Structures are given as C-alpha cells and as structure tokens.
C-alpha cells in the first residue's frame, strides 16, 4: 500500500476581485515507504501549494488525498478513530513536514526542548516527567545534535541554521510519522552544510521507512537524493519519471532548459560560450517581458518554449497519454512521461534538437 496517494488534486486561490487562480491543476502521485519522490519546480510552479494542501493549511477544490489508504477528507474511514478531531489528529501524526526557513520555523520565544515536547505530548502518548525529557534527548541525538542536554536548553537564536533545521527535523519525527514532506529543506542553508542535512533526511528515511516528498528547485540534489522526479510548471506536472531518466534524458523542453541552466564547473570555456550563444538564439527576438507572460489556454510553457508550434495553443495531452513513450528513452525509461506536443506522434514532427548539452 502506498503511504500517500494523491489523485487529481486541484487547488484554487481566490484573488482580489473574485477571480480564481489555479495554483495546482489535477495533480496525481503516490509516495512509497522508504522512497523519496522529488517535486521540482520554480517559484510559482505550485510546489509549495502542494505541501500546504497536504498539510491541510489550504483546502483543495478537488481531488482525493489517501493517507495509508484512508481518505484525508471526510468520507470513508477505516481503522482511524472516530470524530473529526480525532481523525485530524491521526492525520497530523502520520504526516509531518519540514519547512524551508529554519529561522522562521522555530518559535523564537521557546526552547528547543519545548518544540520537541509538544509533539511527544500530543501524539507520543507521553506524560510530563523524566521519560518525556529522555525522549526529547533521544530525538536530538537521532538528528546528531549533541550534547543533547545543552541543545535542549537553548533558544533557536542560539543555534546555527543547520542546527535549527535539525531541530525542525527532530520535531517532525517526534510524532513517528509515515510520510514526511520536506519543503526546500536546505535552500536557506549555507552550501557547505546542505548535503549533511540531506544525508540526514536520507538516512532517517531508510531507518524509519519514511515516505519522503522532497520539494526543491535544485535538479542536482533532486537527482541524487530521490528515486523519482516530478517536474512542475505553473500548477501542472510537465514531466515525471525515474530521476536518472528525467535528468539525463529530459523530454520536456522546460526540463531541458532547467537542466541546461544548472552550472556545470567541468565544462570548458568554449563549450560555455557556445551554450550561451545557443540559448541566446533560442530566446530569439522575444522581449524578456514577453517570455514571462502567462497564457490562459494551451501549453503553459509556450511563451518561453524555444520549440513552440501552432499546436501548442491547444492543451497538450495529459500525462498518462504519453506514458513511457518518451522517444529515445531506452531501457529504464519505464514510467518516464512528459506532457508536450513534441512527444505526441500525431502532432507535427518534433525537432530533435536537444538543448540540454
């Protein structure tokens, strides 16, 4: 059984003046225990809204969220305690999250110990006393914060960014969750400690058989720390598949551009200059402003897409329609899919240009 199954999740935000803005559009995915799924996207892609919706800060306008086979919304319930409050509590126990900004996710007024005691009291069946304190210290040790006794007494401002993020992770683990949502857990941290935090998450995932959703804008760590990748653009998934497949053989022009934009220190100067010239040519004569504009119908990426064709003005086929049909995907391409007219045999012959390299 998947730890979390999301089907056709749609989230709309009400804007001033009554109009609606679709932040997430019919998103479906599943999280498996012991596996990491990376959700990659830029700001405005809707990836944070996904996390907020799964954490129940935002109400979805459509779609189904099944947490260990149980509907998160009111409806079918099996094995969960009765009553809305109890159900909500069970949900929160099972799913926890780690925030992006460790400077904002800990309450400046409270000690580290307070942050860890609360989930233990709420969900761990603990009572105040020495046992609780021991559990707090255990949690701190499990995220390599030692000496735990000292750290527990401190206030957030006395800790470094990395240490704070470890506390935030410990807090999320305190309820002994099955699903962990990590919303850009390292993007606010110093470069040199990012990998340590990601390694910690990876180890905890394995030790505790967690289903991990790793939300990020960084393709490189997404590839190295997850087995599957979903790429989101303006509210919809444009490409998904095994991480090596998606990164090494990107099918959607957006993923290709993302991959090409990532700095690569090993490439020579000449190659860099060439890539730059290529990008400039692809950007052609369109003004920067034009490239950033939002289009209502059709492919949402087409204003920036170097391969945009007339057919792009109509909506590209949904993901399942091209499942596993990425041209040239070869072996290991199973489950690799992209939402683009270029990959649709019935559409105009796709230019084979691969701007990624």
């Amino acid at each position, binding site marked *: 059984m998947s730890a979390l199954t999301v089907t056709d999740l749609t989230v709309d935000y009400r804007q001033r003046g009554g109009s609606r803005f679709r932040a997430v559009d019919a998103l479906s995915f599943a999280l498996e225990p012991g596996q990491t799924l990376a959700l990659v996207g830029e700001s405005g892609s809707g990836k944070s809204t996904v996390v907020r919706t799964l954490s129940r800060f935002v109400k979805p306008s459509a779609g189904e969220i099944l947490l260990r086979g149980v509907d998160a919304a009111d409806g079918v319930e099996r094995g969960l305690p009765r009553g809305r409050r109890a159900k909500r509590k069970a949900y929160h126990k099972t799913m926890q999250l780690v925030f992006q900004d460790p400077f904002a996710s800990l309450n400046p007024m409270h000690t580290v110990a307070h942050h860890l005691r609360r989930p233990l009291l709420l969900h761990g069946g603990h009572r105040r006393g020495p046992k609780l304190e021991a559990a707090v210290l255990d949690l701190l040790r499990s995220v390599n914060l030692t000496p735990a006794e000292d750290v527990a007494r401190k206030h957030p401002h006395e800790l470094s960014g990395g240490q704070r993020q470890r506390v935030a992770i410990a807090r999320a683990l305190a309820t002994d969750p099955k699903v962990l949502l990590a919303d850009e857990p390292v993007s606010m941290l110093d470069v040199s400690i990012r990998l340590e935090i990601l390694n910690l998450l990876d180890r905890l995932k394995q030790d505790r058989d967690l289903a991990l959703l790793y939300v990020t804008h960084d393709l490189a760590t997404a590839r190295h720390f997850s087995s599957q990748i979903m790429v989101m653009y303006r509210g919809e998934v444009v490409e998904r598949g095994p991480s090596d497949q998606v990164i090494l053989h990107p099918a959607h022009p957006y993923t290709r551009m993302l991959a090409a934009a990532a700095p*690569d220190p090993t490439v020579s100067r000449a190659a860099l200059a060439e890539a730059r010239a290529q990008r400039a040519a692809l950007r052609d004569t369109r003004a*920067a402003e034009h490239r950033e504009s939002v289009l209502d119908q059709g492919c949402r990426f087409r204003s920036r897409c170097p391969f945009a064709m007339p057919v792009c003005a109509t909506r590209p086929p949904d993901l399942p329609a091209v499942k596993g049909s990425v041209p040239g995907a070869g072996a290991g391409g199973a489950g690799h899919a992209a939402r683009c007219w270029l990959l649709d045999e019935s559409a105009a012959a796709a230019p084979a240009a691969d701007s990624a390299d």
Partner: protein
Amino acid sequence: MIPSTGTETRDDSSGLGTDLVLRASNVSVEYAGSRPTRAVREVSLELRRGEVLGIVGESGCGKSTFAYALTRMLRPPARMTAGVVEYYGRDGEVIDLAALSGDRLREFRWNKISMVFQSAMNALNPVTGIGSQMDDIFRTHRPGMDKAARRARAGQLLEMVGIDPRRLRSFPHELSGGMRQRVVIAMALALEPEIVVMDEPTTALDVLVQREILDEVERLRAELGFSVVFITHDLALLLEISDRLAVMYAGQVVEYAPAEQVATEPLHPYTRGLLRSFPDLRGQRREMHGIPGNPPDLREALVGCPFAPRCESVFEPCREITPPLRAPAGGWPVACHLHDPAHDDYSSEGGR
C-alpha cells in the same frame, strides 16, 4: 574625467586587459561592539580591466562587507580599520578611495564603480517610477543632458537589457523579479562605469531567469567592456562566469586562483569541500558529503588556521600558526600549510 554618454565601442573589449583597474591592499573591516567583529581581515585583491573577479564564501565570511568597503559604502558600526583601495583610470590617474570625500566621492560613485544589489525589489525605491529613478542618475552626474536626452538614454538602457522602454513609467511593484533585476542592471550601466560590483545579483531568482540574467551580463560585458566583481555563495556558478576567483573564509581570502583551474584542482581544503558540496547534475551517483561544523565566531581572536576545526586534512601547525596567503611554486596564492614547503614532511601524508 567623466566619460561621454555615447555608446562608443571600446577598443580593448575583445580580450582581457592585463592592466589593473582596482587594487585593494590589506583591507580590514570591523563592526564596532562590546566585542568588535573583525569581519574582513587583511584582504588584498586586484581587479583587472575587463575581467570578472569572483568572490565566493558562505554567509558571514565577509564577502559582502568587503564589497561595501571597495565601494566606500560601509556605514557605522562597520568601519574600514586598515588597508588601501586604489582605482586606476584609463588615462593613468590613480585615485585613493579613502581620500575621496564630499562631492568628489559622489562624482566618483556610479561614474567609476556601480553596484547591483542582492535584492532588486529592495534596491528600487518603491514609491517612484523606474524612469524617475534612472533620471536621478543623469540629473546628478550629467547635468548637461536635457530632459529629452535623459529620457532617450534611459529608454535605450532598458532596451539594452531587454525591457520595453515604455516600462519607464512603471513602478517597481509592477515588474516581476527578473525584470526588476534587469532594471537594476540597466541602472548600474547607466554611466558606463569601469567596474560593476554585483552582490549576489541572481540569488533570489529562479534558475531560468538567473541564467538569462547571467547571459545578459556576459553579453553586455563583451559589448561595453566593464570589469565585474561578482559576489556569491554559489561556487559552481562562479567557476563558470568568473576569470579569477577568491574564496573567502572567516574574513580572509584562503584561495585566489584562476577559475578554470580551481574547478579541477582546488588547493585549499575549504575550496575542495565547497566544490564537493555541489553535486554534479549529470555525474556518477556518489557518496555526498559537505563540510561538517560551523565557521568560527569572528568576535574571538583566531589562533592558527580558522578552518582547522572543520578541516579533514588538519595537521600539527594548523592549530597554532595562521597560514599566510602565499603562492606555492607554479601555483596560485593559497592560505594553507599543506602547500607551504616548510611543512612538506607533514603535507605529504596529511594531504588528500
């Protein structure tokens, strides 16, 4: 002294000039306090005409403070306690920045050195239009230009960075993040300065926009021939765009190297660690690890190498003797005992 505002082409914009345009020697900056923070410690760097000098380091390493010192923008409680910053004009004039004051300092600013700030949203006055803010620059520095000329030039600058000149009438909040950063860059180039200091200019932007902006900067540099001091925490990015780079740690430069070579054979263990912290997008899957520990408190007196507590190659002299920034034979300056011939007997075993 003031360059003309026309778009004349520079004869030496094609290749890297080897002559100096800015030299900082032994610059130290302190933040006053009950225990003063020595944020920048005797940093010496040179900027050549037309090159991109990268300064990389993590938060609190002093890179931004150093940039502010270069541009005479330090404000109390920060103060430059030692060192000299000299500007070398094309016509052979040498200006000691510390000696400038009042109107001469104002005249020097933006004409010779301009800046691109980290957050474009915050670097633009939110309540006045883009055009009016560009106009201020010309009004102050080019009193000879009439209104129409200023307007035309401002429009031209916007076009240069790929923005519709009609946007002059817009307010900052009406533009997207990438557009705002383009406007800020256009402003930085308004007076065709010799040097543009860029402090994390793309950190807040999305990957694609970041790439576009960097391409734009590269193109403009080729066209206009200015030098860039590029400050960022993103070493991978810097390796790609800079000619030479300085790695800063705990207020000091620990490695000062040609960018192309440092990518493949970094000398300082900190640089190595930083490089390793950027996983290669397409490379082999491997064991990932960063640099354990935290940087030192700059309010404390530092004994020995400041990186020693986090260093994987630490050996005897590191904890007592502060390594000087010195170039080993055939190499580039690095502040590490591993590359000091005096400690050869250790470094052979303690090295990588």
